[in-house]
């Protein structure tokens, strides 16, 4: 589904991501973890298209996307979330999601239609809110939602773009433990329908959820395997578990 | 050679130093503090008029040059402390709009206090006369203007590059929270920088007064040109503002010789070219 080869990003002399090979198989939830400064966020931005790689390649669904920008990748079916809550604050929850659904149509330059009455778009938006459990908040302004709900809305926006692959960047960042748990449960439910790449700092959260885990440190891949293998890996324990646990 | 071309070029440098002073102040405020100050030209005009009043009252132009930057900087401190900070959270658009209101107030206040007619002062007596150049001569005062501007621009540059506070200002721009942790009142520091920035504009207004005189709309005319200077030099680059200012002054002078009708348009054409070829400006980063 998603494959990187020798993916590298340099910032001056600093190599943030160093020749990383990752294979995300269809239908799996693949977590990328690592301590702060391991290069996770840089890797994520390379995958989503926010950053241009210094070397290597990215393939998505057998298509070389290395040179495509974020907008094009979104249209290919790579949907991303953001580490900080990133919604349209002064629009309603429904409008937030409707915009995302509208982006999949060819109606966005239509000047003579009414945005609120595109049936297919409305249906898609409602489905995304339903899926994420926010339908009850549809008329509220996004900025008025609680922090955890805003993060869910962020996810609903991404879902409404009909992605094949979800790229989630530290979704639990800054959430209370209960909210983080709630969000992770939602992500677990989504894993049945989407291929997911989840970047996460909070390792215990992803252990029970992931099919495969890649551990990064100093821009390189330290280990790769199932949660059980990762838990048993001495190098991972030394670099990561040892520090946080 | 009659010296006329040389005079034109020298005049271009004189005008360029004025642009450099104004744009250096603008770049401190705009590029480093990230405050869109559309009233920068109004501070320039106020500088000229305050200088006029000081000269009228005391007959001493040197005193005017010393007093004007302080008075204008003081006004800047008030504006920043009372309005710009408050509006920072509302966003840039509202900061622009507020400074736009200031332009209206300043322009009309000038008419009310000093009248709508142009004002002027004589060149200080010590600088009467000029350097002979062919059939014409180049006034000493203009040489003084270039030297004084260069001195002030250099002093501010040294303060930015070589002092602890300069380092903090530059660091504060990258990471205000980090600097706040060191225990420095960043807000106060930024307010002072705002004051210095508009003070430079005020000084430029005072320096140009004996050459061009003052008129209420002088700030507005300067504003668009100094935006072009900042875009050409690179937003946020102090060096870029200075080089851009001299470049624009010289371009105007050369165009005045070659094709006067296009001397103003040429600057904006140069600006458009820079945007297309090098959007970050000649000396801008990124």
């Amino acid at each position, binding site marked *: 589904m998603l494959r990187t080869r020798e993916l590298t990003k340099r910032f001056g002399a600093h190599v943030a991501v160093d020749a990383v090979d990752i294979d995300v198989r269809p239908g799996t939830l693949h977590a990328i973890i690592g301590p702060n400064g391991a290069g996770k966020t840089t890797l994520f931005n390379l995958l989503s298209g926010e950053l241009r790689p210094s070397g290597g390649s990215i393939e998505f669904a057998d298509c070389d996307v290395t040179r495509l920008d974020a907008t094009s990748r979104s249209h290919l079916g790579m949907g991303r979330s953001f580490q900080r809550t990133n919604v349209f604050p002064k629009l309603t929850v429904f409008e937030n999601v409707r915009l995302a659904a509208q982006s999949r149509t060819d109606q966005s330059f239509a000047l003579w239609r009414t*945005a609120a009455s595109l049936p297919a778009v409305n249906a898609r938006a409602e489905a995304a809110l339903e899926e994420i459990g926010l339908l009850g908040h549809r008329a509220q302004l996004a900025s008025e939602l609680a922090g955890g709900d805003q993060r869910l809305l962020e996810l609903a926006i991404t879902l409404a773009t009909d992605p094949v692959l979800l790229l989630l960047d530290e979704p639990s960042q800054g959430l209370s433990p209960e909210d983080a748990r709630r969000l992770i449960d939602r992500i677990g439910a989504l894993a049945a329908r989407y291929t997911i790449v989840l970047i996460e700092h909070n390792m215990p959260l992803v252990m029970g959820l992931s099919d495969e885990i890649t551990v990064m440190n100093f821009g390189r891949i330290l280990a790769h395997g199932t949660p059980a293998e990762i838990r048993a890996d001495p190098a991972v324990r030394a670099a990561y578990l040892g520090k946080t646990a | 050679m009659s010296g006329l071309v040389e005079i034109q070029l020298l005049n271009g440098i004189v005008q360029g130093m004025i642009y450099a002073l104004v744009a250096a102040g603008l770049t401190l405020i705009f590029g480093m503090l990230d405050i869109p100050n559309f009233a920068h030209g109004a501070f320039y005009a106020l500088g000229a008029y305050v200088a006029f009043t000081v000269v009228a009252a005391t007959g001493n132009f040197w005193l005017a040059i010393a007093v004007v930057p302080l008075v204008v900087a003081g006004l800047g401190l008030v504006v920043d402390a009372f309005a710009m900070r408050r509006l920072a959270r509302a966003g840039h658009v509202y900061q622009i709009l507020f400074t736009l209101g*200031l332009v209206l107030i300043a322009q009309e206040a000038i008419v009310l206090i000093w009248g709508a007619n142009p004002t002027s002062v004589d060149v200080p007596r010590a600088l009467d006369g000029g350097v002979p150049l062919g059939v014409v001569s180049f006034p000493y005062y203009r040489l003084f203007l270039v030297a004084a501007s260069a001195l002030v621009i250099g002093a501010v540059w040294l303060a930015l590059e070589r002092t602890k506070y300069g380092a903090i200002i530059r660091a504060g721009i990258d990471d205000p929270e980090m600097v706040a942790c060191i225990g420095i009142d960043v807000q106060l520091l930024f307010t002072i920088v705002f004051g210095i920035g508009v003070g430079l504009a005020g000084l430029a207004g005072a320096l140009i007064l004996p050459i061009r005189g003052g008129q209420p709309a002088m700030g507005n005319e300067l504003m*668009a040109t100094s935006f072009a200077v900042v875009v050409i030099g690179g937003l946020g680059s102090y060096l870029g503002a200075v080089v851009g200012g001299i470049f624009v002054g010289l371009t105007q002078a050369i165009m005045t010789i070659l094709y006067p009708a296009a001397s103003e348009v040429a600057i904006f054409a140069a600006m458009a070219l820079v945007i297309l070829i090098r959007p970050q400006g000649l000396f801008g980063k990124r």
Partner: protein
Amino acid sequence: MTRFAVLVVVVALAPLVLHYPELETQILTFGLLAVAFNLLLGEMGFLSFGQATFNGVGAYVAANALIAAHAALPLALLAGLVAGGASAAVIGALAITGRGVYGVMLTFAFNEMAYYIAFQWRDVTGGDNGLRGIPSPALFGLSLDDATRYYYFTAVVVLLAFAALLRIIDSPFGAVLRAIRENEDRARAIGFRVRRYKIAAFAISGALSGLAGGLYAELFRFVPLQAIDLDTSTNVVIATLLGGIGSPYGPLLGAAIFTVLSNSLSHVWSHWPLVFGLIFCAVVLFFRGGLWGIADRWGRRAAHA
């Protein structure tokens, strides 16, 4: 819809109540300019500080079409509209290269450039004497050379343009503009080519501004250099903010009040801009919704009570 109906009635009755059809026509053309400006500011979140550029381009093109090409009035207005839109698309494309404030600066600087071009290009613009000799308005053989008749002609055109704009605001395209205003990066991430939408919005805003310019040129059969100068751009910004950027009706209200005040107060006290500047600063600091925002709040409170 009801608001629009009220607007139509007000516009239709205005000349019967106040007998200054020229002033009222000016309100309409300036109002259209403000509404066009607010498509960029209120909907897309971009402060265009060069709206007079497009107004002036439209006025000069329409006027020259009438003078030199003896074009029919609708055709001349259409030419002004197209020219305004084209100039705005070009300047918009250049201005949005940089983010935020940088773009505002560029629209401002390009306005000054346009002003100098108009100032120098006397054959087309008349320079600082203004462009004279525009033939009196006529529509399919019917003379509009009467202030009240021309007012009603302008009213129909402006109301149609305004209705079109309301439609655009409610369209999927308008929704994308609001997405850009609220969060440009997120809009890009969900797949919108933000740059294209911005340029299109500039073109629409410029087209309506060009139309306003054409209507204005025919009003006094004269295009002053002020039609394209920065003071006019500034006035558009001030009037719009005074009226309120939160609704398309706000700029219309602001334009009406601004035009009336600047025409009447300048006779009373020549330094009125001083007071105006103070009021404006107060609006920016304390009443960001403008007059329409205040009226809206009262209206809602009354509805609740």
